[in-house]
């Protein structure tokens, strides 16, 4: 299920503005990779290039290579829709579909893609909700609207929705920044469980969170406002937080930034 991501020489633009420049890294399967760095350094942009969501933004375009188990996501003839079925995404703010019930939200990916058998659907929804640690809380009200849940529950619903289509990679863009500490803990635990099955990439502003959940950590930075963001270093999380090889990383982590 889980696949390796190999990025080489990736540069992304918004119109004529270069947002990130020349990023190369490898994301290992069945592990959690965290992206940290100051605001505006291109973490989220980079994350969105990994499932071709970057080009959804008007003017967004990408140069370079992203290999998903040796297949270039930006190669000729690659269908971005198929890419997004393999590389799922969870967003910063919980965004369940407001017209759909909890059940329909989880089933949305399968239903909207038209690839499901009716009798399988119940099992998949239950499995996904259990996978997102939400089953016990919502099993009695699957027909109620998803927007009636609390913020933390909604975010787990979104994770359930993302894993219901069985992607190979799960991208998370600051999934806990809108949540309270208890919901954050629930989601962090969940990330720990999900990494057995998926390759997970998480963007976070919370360095403790990166230290807690990730196996590897990448530090992004930008030299000045308006300059493109760059990857400073990527290493095992332990090393990044104890003995990083670049001075800027240590400054950022220890709060002596700027």
């Amino acid at each position: 299920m889980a696949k390796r991501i190999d990025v080489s020489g990736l540069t992304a633009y918004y119109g004529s503005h270069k947002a990130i420049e020349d990023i190369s890294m490898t994301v290992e399967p069945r592990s959690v990779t965290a992206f940290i760095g100051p605001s505006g350094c291109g973490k989220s942009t980079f994350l969105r290039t990994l499932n071709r969501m970057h080009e959804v933004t008007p003017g967004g375009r990408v140069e370079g290579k992203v290999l998903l188990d040796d297949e270039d996501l930006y190669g000729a003839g690659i269908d971005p829709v198929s890419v997004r079925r393999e590389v799922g995404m969870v967003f910063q703010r919980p965004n369940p579909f407001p017209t759909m019930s909890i059940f329909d939200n989880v089933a949305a990916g399968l239903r909207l893609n038209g690839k499901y058998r009716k009798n399988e659907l119940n099992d998949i929804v239950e499995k996904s909700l259990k996978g997102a640690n939400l089953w016990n809380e919502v099993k009695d009200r699957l027909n109620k609207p998803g927007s009636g849940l609390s913020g933390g529950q909604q975010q787990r619903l979104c994770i359930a929705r993302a894993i219901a289509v069985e992607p190979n990679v799960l991208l998370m863009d600051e999934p806990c920044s809108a949540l309270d500490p208890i919901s954050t803990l629930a989601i962090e635990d969940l990330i720990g469980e999900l990494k057995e099955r998926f390759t997970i990439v998480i963007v976070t502003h919370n360095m403790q969170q990166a230290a807690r959940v990730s196996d590897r950590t990448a530090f992004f930075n930008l030299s000045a406002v308006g300059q493109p963001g760059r990857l400073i270093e990527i290493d095992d999380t332990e090393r990044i937080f104890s003995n990083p090889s670049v001075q800027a990383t240590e400054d950022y982590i220890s709060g002596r930034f700027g």
Partner: protein
Amino acid sequence: MSTAAVTDKRPSTLRGASLPKWSPWAIAGGSIVLAVAIGLIGGLHSKVEWGLIAAVLFLLGTYGVATMVEGRRQAKDRIATSLVWVAFLLAVIPLVSLIWVTVSRGVKVLNVYFLTHSMGVVADSEPGGGIYHAIIGSLEQVGLATVIGAPIGILTAIYLVEYGRGKLAKAVTFFVDVMTGIPSIVAGLFILSLMLIFQMQPFGFAGSLALAILMMPVVVRSTEEMLKLVPNELREASLALGVPKWRTILKVVLPTSIGGITTGVMLAIARIAGETAPVLLLVFGNPFINNNPFEGAQASLPLFIFQQYQQSAGASAAYDRAWAASLTLIAFVMILNLVARGIARWKAPKTGR
């Protein structure tokens, strides 16, 4: 103990003098009495003048009294509130009087017979007859116009919001704006010129085409606004699940905004249901029942009202029929609005737990 007594005697800086709750009513009553007095003394005959004088007196009185008692800031607050109330009343009075006149005059001949019979064998100056032919004509023309105008309008709006980039989108937006300003008679003349080229006689569908032209820009504008209200996050969430864009629009964007879109379409229908000019040119009017909108002249409610008023030469029976038809038309539009509200409420994204 002694300090407390001293503090008590000191005036509070947080509490100021304020007018009692009934003061706006008292001022309103006083200004009406005063206005009536001025009107009688000054020999003003128009009740409208009395009302305007009362409104001005009410505003001045509120400001004066509030300034004296409460101070300038509260006085400004009160005058803003009073202005809102006066504007509200000025807007509501003509509306209520219009409905009152229409209902009181319209109910005279409005009954089941009136709704189910045509004017086929009744001269315009005689009593009797009905508006069945006009209702059929209105329903068919407006229905066909909606069938043409609403889908084109909604699809245009989807193009503008979801796909439109660059010059084409700008041009479409510009022409939609221009179309919003087309007078209905011009839309009628446009279709009439086509009819003359092809040497056709008036028929219902020609009216539908003109009505569709009038309807489209309204539908485009309202649908566009509704689609823009759908958060981008929902589109991204759907795309990130590997759902193609067209399915995202069909299954996520449209259901989220369907309530508002329906309301917009209904309001557009209500707008064209009262159009007279293009119908007069293209459908011509017909006292007999004509169920076929594709051949022969038809009637329609607004056209019927106009023709009853114009051709009756002062016969009161025709005036009564015109009022009753107006009442029917207003009721039709109001029912449409209620249906639109019902659908909007029923389809609105649910928030219950």
